[in-house]
């Protein structure tokens, strides 16, 4: 159950971004998860209400997009979508592949609600 720890780390980042930008509240959070990240999307969803309680992100919708597991063969150069425990090139069958998608656990974007004048304020 490391998803709770990961969720708390996510909330910390989101709180910082919301504070930096004087947001009223966070309406949605989009994250991308690859199956090889070791993070289970459903467990993350379950942990979210616990981790976000009392924070500016309490009522935000957590949108989790799952990315495909995709490898590139170092021998024949082709790319294939594969299973998490079968990272073999589908073209030539070689095991010497590199992962090009599938181990992500990334905070993609945060949607904020702001008051009228703070929306137009430059942030950087």
């Amino acid at each position: 159950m490391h998803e709770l720890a990961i969720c708390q780390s996510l909330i910390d980042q989101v709180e910082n971004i919301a504070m930096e930008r004087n947001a009223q509240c966070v309406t949605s959070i989009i994250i991308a998860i690859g199956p090889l990240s070791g993070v289970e999307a459903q467990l993350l969803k379950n942990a979210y209400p616990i981790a976000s309680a009392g924070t500016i992100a309490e009522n935000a919708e957590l949108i989790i997009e799952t990315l495909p597991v995709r490898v590139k063969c170092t021998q024949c150069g082709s790319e294939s979508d594969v299973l998490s425990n079968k990272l073999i090139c589908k073209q030539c069958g070689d095991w010497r592949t590199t992962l090009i998608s599938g181990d992500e656990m990334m905070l993609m974007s945060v949607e904020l609600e702001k008051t009228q004048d703070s929306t137009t304020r430059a942030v950087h």
Partner: protein
Amino acid sequence: MCDSCGCNITHGNEDLIRPGGKLHKTESGKEAVSVLHSLLHENDHTAKHNRDHFDQHKVLAINLMSSPGAGKTALLEATIQLLDKGIRIAVIEGDLETENDAERIRKHGVKAIQIATGSACHLDAHMIHQALHNLDLEEFDIVFIENVGNLVCPASFDLGQHLNVTLLSVPEGDDKPAKYPVMFRASDLVMISKSDLLPILDDFKPDRAKNYLRDIASTAPVMELSSKDKSGMAEWIEWIKQQIEVRKTYVEQHPPASGHAHSHHHHEHEEIKM
């Protein structure tokens, strides 16, 4: 993974996640802030800091992972006995409760710091950072971090180690790499431990374990070893000595930033208004 900051944007996924991509949608009337940071951004930052700290003192850090009872502490005890006396060892022990493992290590005259994680099923970079405050790295050549026994959670947290060693003990069965690909993919060396049991538990086939590792595109060497009858220990000791030298040479050629300077890398936060 990108080399500059450790984010996960590759050409395989960037179409999906870059602005305008499928995952980059926003409802009208709100402000979307593109972030593109790892969910463990803060942990990764501390891990890098720990690694710099090890490098400044030319210390090799090895993270030992396995399921509970695979023989991590027994391996460390055998390693302490057999490693050249000139190589100075420290151990950081992670367990949910008790000082038992640290006490086993201390009996061999080796410095051991116990981290009690409470309910946490893994070590994280902050815990290691805390432990390093109690360790004068100038006095050591190698630090072993014995992670919490668990084949799932520890794989997701960078601690600042240089190498991951995963133990797969014979009683566990040879298909663990297929069941826990995240853990075994992260391993720089896979050790089939309790190999003295191979004649008894003969349904464990080392070749089958190796095939499962190939299936997850692992290039990690595989060793068979028994901390009990000491078979295979010579190869492991040789590997450690080699890795200490490899790290020393690397650090001499690429000296780390000195002091406690924190350099933060940030992706540009793009602001999209709709």
